């Protein structure tokens, strides 16, 4: 038996499709299908028809008054695995189906959440669910990076982060109960950098006996971050494996803020100037972005130069929101990485 109930009394799902039949019919009738779930060419039908190969069970909150789910609404592990693979592939391949990727993201994130709920209700745990949860972490990491420039109304980084943490916590707990995975060092390294402001992750890395290039990279990044060595941090970013670069990207605004803060004191002068060009290569920003940051932190500008002054740094300023590092091509590297992860961790013929 592949599923391990913690207490043995869990319900075992019998639904063999990605979406239970009753839900599919209900949503088709009520016109609640997502465009990604409709049969091609039926979008203008009344109502549009569901494509059973594309329709996936929605997430619904468990709440008082909602009936507990029956076995025929729950998907057993192999189906959950298949569903996850389908969703991740959809996220990687369907580039412009809906015009923008955030629509695909919303769909995939919601349906993955439903997968996690099925896992919890059936008490599935241990080694079998690890690859599912691990790839979910990679997905949220990738999405968080890819969508970081959008407005909060289009993409909520906090919610994405909560889902990522939910997955990664489950993964780490599973490791802690003694279930090993070939991806353990990867996930531990991601966690250490994702949660860089708390030392928990890096302490985990340090205390584990196993080490690899990945964990060394993550520890090194942590040290550079906490000692504000912005010069080496940005330089090392270029050689960092894609998942770790993704995890670091969200912290770069505060690294830059700290850099501007230190430079405001160290380069403080009424006469001396610092070229924008130099800062642009140092902090991996375009010259335009350097100027915008300078303005945000209260640093004076003069043609192609900045003029730092001790008293001018604006301590009330918030870090300038995250942007993507276009020239590092993290996105495409991450896509390749996740595809490879699927091949290595799942039997894709199923």
């Amino acid at each position: 038996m592949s599923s391990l109930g913690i207490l043995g009394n869990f319900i075992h799902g019998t639904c063999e499709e990605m979406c239970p039949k009753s839900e599919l019919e209900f949503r088709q009738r009520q016109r609640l299908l997502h465009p990604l779930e409709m049969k091609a060419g039926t979008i203008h039908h009344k109502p549009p028809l569901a494509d059973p190969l594309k329709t996936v069970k929605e997430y619904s909150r468990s709440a008082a008054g909602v009936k507990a789910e029956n076995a025929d609404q729950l998907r057993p592990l192999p189906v959950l695995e298949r569903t996850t693979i389908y969703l991740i592939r959809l996220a990687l391949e369907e580039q412009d189906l809906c015009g923008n990727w955030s629509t695909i993201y919303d769909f995939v994130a919601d349906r993955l959440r439903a997968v996690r709920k099925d896992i919890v209700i059936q008490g599935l745990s241990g080694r079998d669910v690890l690859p599912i949860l691990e790839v979910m972490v990679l997905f949220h990491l990738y999405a968080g990076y890819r969508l970081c420039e959008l407005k909060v109304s289009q993409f909520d980084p906090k919610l994405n982060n909560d889902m990522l943490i939910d997955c990664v916590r489950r993964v780490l707990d599973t490791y802690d109960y003694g279930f090993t995975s070939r991806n353990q060092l990867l996930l531990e390294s991601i966690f250490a950098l994702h949660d860089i402001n708390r030392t928990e992750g890096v302490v985990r890395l340090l205390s584990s006996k196993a080490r690899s290039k990945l964990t060394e990279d993550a520890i090194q990044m942590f040290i550079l971050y906490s000692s504000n060595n912005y010069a080496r941090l940005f330089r090392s970013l270029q050689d960092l494996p894609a998942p770790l670069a993704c995890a670091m990207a969200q912290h770069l605004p505060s690294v830059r803020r700290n850099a501007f803060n230190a430079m405001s004191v160290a380069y403080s002068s009424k006469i001396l100037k610092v070229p924008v060009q130099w800062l642009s290569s140092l902090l991996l920003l375009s010259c335009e972005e350097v100027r915008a940051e300078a303005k945000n932190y209260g640093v004076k500008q003069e043609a192609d130069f900045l003029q730092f002054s001790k008293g001018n740094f604006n301590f009330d300023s918030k870090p300038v929101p995250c942007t993507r590092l276009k020239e590092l091509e993290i996105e495409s590297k991450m896509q390749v990485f996740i595809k490879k992860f699927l091949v290595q961790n799942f039997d894709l013929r199923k």
Partner: protein
Amino acid sequence: MPLSEIVLSHLQAANSIHDNDWLKAFEHQCGVVAAITKWLQLQKDENWSLPVMHTACVELRLLALQAERIQKKSHSVSHVECLEKAAESLMGCFRICASDNRSSEEMTKRWGMLALINQLFKVYFRINKLNLCKPLIRAIEGSPFKEDFSLSQQVTFRYYTGRKAMFDSEFRQAEAYLEYSFQHCHVQSRKNKRRILIYLIPVKMLLGYMPKRALLEKYDLMAFWPAAQAIREGNSNGLSRAIEKNETFFIKNGVYIMLEKLRMIAFRNLFKKVYHILNTHQIDIQALNVALKCSGVTDADVDETQCLVANLINDNKIKGYISHQHNKLVVSKQNPFPALHTVA
């Protein structure tokens, strides 16, 4: 009647220990503490039972540790989070004690708070939930008799609050707490004094006080010696080797990151040497870069050198400024490298 419950659960726990069933023993001990909590609640204006509570709580924590250890070893599918559960039980007691503000000063159960907090600290540090310590610290800081708890409890309390402050990079505060703890720790508990020093020494180093060899020898802490030497000399490579050599010790005690932070002190000492050799107030960044490379940061470039100097200036560890155009560090004519204990 809670008293009979206490006795019954206690006997069951003792019996499970005899059978080597640690998880059962832990569960029964949870019963003991729960019954004691009820019992305490019934007692008005008396606190003679606090030592009973204290003993039961210590045993609860020790049983939780043992039960976790056994579970980890057995790779069992089910897993009871004993330390978390123990913390919950302890919090139950804590609430009763902390809210007993109607009794007179001699009779209030609030005298039991600190002992409970120290038990909770031990659990939270073990499960890496340091953020949960904050409200507990506040409860003691706000207590009118915070100076009047027993000295041994205060020593323990300061040891943990000192460590917490160290993790939060509040080094002055960490120094004060750990120093109190060290000074007031019983002379004969060398083991505890040594434990305190494991944190006090790196904190002191960061504030500019290097440990004497005799002290390290006395407390069997020579693991710190090569690191201290390397920092003094400004030898980054030496520091890396020193950390590597005693890596397990540093990691186990949670001071590895602290030692990495000390690298900045090593850089400061190195740059000070260059300043003395060149004997000028306008130091070529290139010269500092060469020194960095020689000291072990072999792939350091000029940008990184400027970055390190910028941080040192920002931390007041160097008095001066950088001229990017001339690639020079211009240091103050007076006291360009102020003594570390005056600036940190």
